[in-house]
């Protein structure tokens, strides 16, 4: 399938350089990354509100911008629906006039019909004569979407559409937004710095950092296989650790970390075969290591790989879960400040195992839970 959206953009600002290239297809492409990484600027380039120095923007085969060919379609002619951060509804116009704003050039009858249709489909009936300051957060979002969708855009751009809302409302509106975007079947580009938002709404996630694309992948792949330690860090992964290769084979890779030998699964399909002593970065999800009960038989080597031992030096209670900061018994400098590994366990496990009293534990990390990050 060919990409519907093709973006290559370079722009040099006084204190920032944007240099990105990515493609987007059906559904929602999410631009994800920390604030100041160039996400909004990219949207402005797509909408024609900011002119890049170089690059090319193609939507469904229609060239909107091509620096080399001297093409720069005016924002008025791009047919791009833009939902601004904070919505940017016209405060002096009613809901109806806001939604009809982009339809001025249509014949009056068609304009009225289309406006009524959008109002109906978005459940805004009864609010037509209201002004934006009298709308709730959810209604504002729908009006902003309605205004953008009314012009039958080739695609919509959404700039942090949920950032203006409080947390509980945010969850609800995220679901609503997802339903609307699916229902209207318009390709969308959405900007966010909240990963759970990116993951729920995005079919494809493009990770931005410092004006560059660090990775572009379907959302599932992104979580399973972040392309680098910087992507893992942006995604908010914990336990990003550095070790050294001892031996690499197609299916297994053995590494040295903190005086221990760890065994990790390699990906046979695209095996990573670095020579001995190559430094490697890997991460371990805090929920993956398993504590080993002290009563009962000694740990079964088939069941538990990579057995380590250490003690809890601090813990964080976040309600449902407890995060244990573990330091290995092994002498030496701990990997992450004063501890080596974060382990997250459910609150009830904490209670059952009496972790409040018993601080020294053995735990195992399955080889499949050690994720290597080619850097």
């Amino acid at each position: 399938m060919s990409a519907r959206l093709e973006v290559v953009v370079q722009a040099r600002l006084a204190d920032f350089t944007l240099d990105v290239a990515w493609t987007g297809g059906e559904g929602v492409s999410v631009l994800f990354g920390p604030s100041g990484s160039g996400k909004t600027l990219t949207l402005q380039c797509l909408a024609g509100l900011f002119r890049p120095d170089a690059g090319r923007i193609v939507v469904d085969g229609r060239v909107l911008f091509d620096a080399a060919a001297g093409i720069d379609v005016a924002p008025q002619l791009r047919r791009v629906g833009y939902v601004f951060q904070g919505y940017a509804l016209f405060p002096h116009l009613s809901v109806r006039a806001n939604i009809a704003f982009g339809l001025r050039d249509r014949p009056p009858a068609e304009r009225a019909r289309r406006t009524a249709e959008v109002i109906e489909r978005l459940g805004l009936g009864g609010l037509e004569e209201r002004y934006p300051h009298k709308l709730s957060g959810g209604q504002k979002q729908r009006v902003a979407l309605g205004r953008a969708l009314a012009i039958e855009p080739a695609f919509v751009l959404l700039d942090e559409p949920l950032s203006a809302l409080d947390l509980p409302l945010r969850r609800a509106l995220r679901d609503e937004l997802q339903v609307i975007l699916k229902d209207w079947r318009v390709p969308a580009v959405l900007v966010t710095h909240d990963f759970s938002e990116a993951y729920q709404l995005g079919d494809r996630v493009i990770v931005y950092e410092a004006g560059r694309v660090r990775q572009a992948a379907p959302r599932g792949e992104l979580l399973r296989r972040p392309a680098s330690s910087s992507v893992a860090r942006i995604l908010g992964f914990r336990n990003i650790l550095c070790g050294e290769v001892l031996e690499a084979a197609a299916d297994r890779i053995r590494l040295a970390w903190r005086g221990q030998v760890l065994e990790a699964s390699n990906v046979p399909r695209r095996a990573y075969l670095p020579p001995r002593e190559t430094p490697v970065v890997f991460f371990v999800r805090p929920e993956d290591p398993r504590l080993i009960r002290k009563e009962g038989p000694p740990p079964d080597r088939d069941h538990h790989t990579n057995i380590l031992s250490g003690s809890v030096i601090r813990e964080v209670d976040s309600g449902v879960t407890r995060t244990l900061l573990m330091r290995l018994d092994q002498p030496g400098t701990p990997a992450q400040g004063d501890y080596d590994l974060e382990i997250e366990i459910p609150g009830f496990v904490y209670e059952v195992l009496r972790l409040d009293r018993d601080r020294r534990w053995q735990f195992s990390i399955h080889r499949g839970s050690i994720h290597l990050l080619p850097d």
Partner: protein
Amino acid sequence: MSPESLNALALSIRVATVATLLNALLGIPLAYVLARKRFRWRWLVDLLVTLPLILPPTVTGYYLIVLLGRRGWLGAPLYLLTGWSVAFTWYAAVIASAVMAMPLLVRTARAAIESVDRDLERAAFTLGRSEWRTVLEVTLPQARNGILAGLVLAFARALGEFGATLMLAGNIPGWTTTVPLAIYTAVQTGEASEVLVLVGALTAVSCAVIFVAGRLGTSAT
């Protein structure tokens, strides 16, 4: 109220009204350009517009004579071509008041336009509006209160203008004598009752302007 005083009051209101209209016509576009455009000589335009606010009015008046007087840079060719000079006519009073009032409008309107959310203008662009239509349909309605406040200030300034008007238009009774000039003349010649009448009239007009502006301001929101 004596016929002369009545005449002065009518002239003052006429001069201030025309000067304010002139301000609206030139000052609002100027405020927009200063607020939204970046160009090479922007600082100079900004400086020239603001200068009358800082300079003593007689100095501004002197520059206006140099520019528009019968032997001025623009005035001389005009006089040569038409045999007419703007100096010492009521048009001169209008020009002097307009120049003195301009900074008040431009500065207030510019601040109001700068405070309009740029995303509103960007939204209008993506919805098919040209920059010109966006200004009319989005920017100006949003900046309306600030612009109205600026126009009221400009009107009040034009109504009270003395120094620059005296320099360029003179003090010709029934012709260029506005109320502030009439008050000065009346004080000089000791006509205490006329002074009171004129001072009262100007105060009343000013109060009315503030009242009307307040009404406009509240109905706009």
